[in-house]
């Protein structure tokens, strides 16, 4: 059997992952329906509309939905949309800060163009209270400014003043609680979620309770393509795709070598066959 030194395989895999990080290849990203639905929902909003970003995710989900957070924030800024930031998970406040940073970097002002209302405890009950009366549930923003002095919140009493909700689901409370509590209000909801948990929320799109889903890094890359803000997700997708190609080529090559030199295969003959 033809033996290749496995170290060549390692080198090829390393390069396949590393090179796209240096120089993104811009491999075509196939945009799914759910991602484009979210994109369209944002595009359809007239400038000046208020979007609620509920960053209910912990740092451990950063790799999966962090890129989505960034590209959505950039998209909102570019469309001139205002953002109310809130989190129902304690660690989510830091994520909201990162959205705020993107707004600030674009010269937007806290209190006028965006506001970070911080953490709201209480899980699903907290969500219900927030929907019913935003200002009562959050007496001040994270900078300590009382809600009465925040221009953005004037005229915004219940969740009905919000044009679109973008919720980052990774834990409890999350999308399920949102969907349940949103029933009386009918505000459109978009869900950002990790790939692994996607299957649990697809029913909401089918039932019309959510406008779309952005699942994992793949969706972030799709959104980056839609908006033109190419970033971390696009790069990572290139690396991922090239990595996959290496794996598949290795398997094909392994088989080619195997059939080319079948006779000499006796030693590692057990490999891949019936070995359980």
């Amino acid at each position, binding site marked *: 059997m033809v033996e290749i030194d*496995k170290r060549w*395989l*390692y080198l090829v*895999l390393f390069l396949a992952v590393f090179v796209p990080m240096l120089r993104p290849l811009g*491999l*075509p*990203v*196939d945009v*799914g329906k759910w991602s484009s639905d979210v994109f369209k929902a944002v595009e359809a909003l007239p400038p000046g509309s208020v979007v609620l970003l509920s960053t209910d995710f912990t740092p451990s989900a950063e790799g999966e939905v962090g890129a989505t957070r960034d590209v959505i924030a950039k998209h909102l800024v570019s469309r001139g949309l205002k953002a109310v930031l809130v989190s129902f998970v304690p660690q989510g406040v830091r994520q909201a800060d990162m959205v705020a940073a993107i707004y600030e970097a674009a010269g937007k002002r806290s209190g006028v163009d965006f506001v970070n209302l911080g953490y709201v405890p209480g899980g699903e009950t907290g969500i219900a209270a927030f929907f019913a009366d935003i200002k009562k549930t959050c007496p001040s923003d994270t900078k300590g400014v009382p809600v009465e002095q925040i221009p953005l919140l004037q005229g915004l009493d219940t969740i009905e003043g919000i044009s679109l909700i973008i919720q980052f689901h990774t834990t409890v409370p999350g999308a399920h609680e949102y969907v349940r509590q949103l029933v009386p209000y009918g505000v459109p909801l978009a869900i950002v979620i990790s790939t692994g948990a996607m*299957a649990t929320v697809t029913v909401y799109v089918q039932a019309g309770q959510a406008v779309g889903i952005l699942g994992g890094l*793949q969706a972030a*890359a799709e959104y980056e393509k839609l908006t033109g803000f190419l970033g971390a997700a696009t790069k990572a*997708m290139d690396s*991922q*795709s090239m*990595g*996959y*190609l*290496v*794996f*598949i080529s*290795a*398997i094909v*090559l*392994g*088989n080619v070598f*195997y059939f080319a030199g079948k006779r000499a295969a006796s030693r*590692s003959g057990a*490999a*891949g*066959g*019936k070995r359980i």
Partner: protein
Amino acid sequence: MRREAPLILSSVIGIVVILEAFVQVPLLTTIAKELMDWVVILSAAALCLASVHLMRTHIMKVSRRSSLWLYSVPLLVVFIVMSGAGLFGGTKAPVFTWLFDRVYAPVDASLYGMYAFFLLSACFRAFRAKNLLATALLVTGIVVMLGRSALGPMLHHQFPTAVEWIFDIPNTAANRGVLIGATLGLMSASFRLLVGIDRSYMAGE
């Protein structure tokens, strides 16, 4: 007696803990709760024993200058510094966290990052269409890889659906079959361990 007494004692303890899961008796719950604390203490004691063993082995290596003894020196140094800092300064001591973050964590994370290379090597060797079974492994492996990457949908839009199906049906079925068998095996082994049929760690005299 040296064999039977510990066995009988431990069997009783085991049965109490098992019963507590199924029977509603307050006394049993109290005892079982107490025993659960024993788990923590005993496993910590075993850890101490293992650590003593570790130190003894490496001190021996250094004193006998046996092969690789030179590496045992840094091992002993970091072990003593780390456990000393942990014991006296608590787990928030700066030395403790520095060694953890700057020595342990990067090596651990790097090993974790190396899995990809070894998975590649395993795929290269194992995914060979030698017979029907191996071909089944190969084909599903490739289908899933394609379906989970951005490449699959480019080839055919049904790829992700096919992957979902493989996980929902054949994978779940196989998982269940293995699980039911393995659980019966586990129950049987537990019985043997509890009544002392399997006692390789203390058989003989």
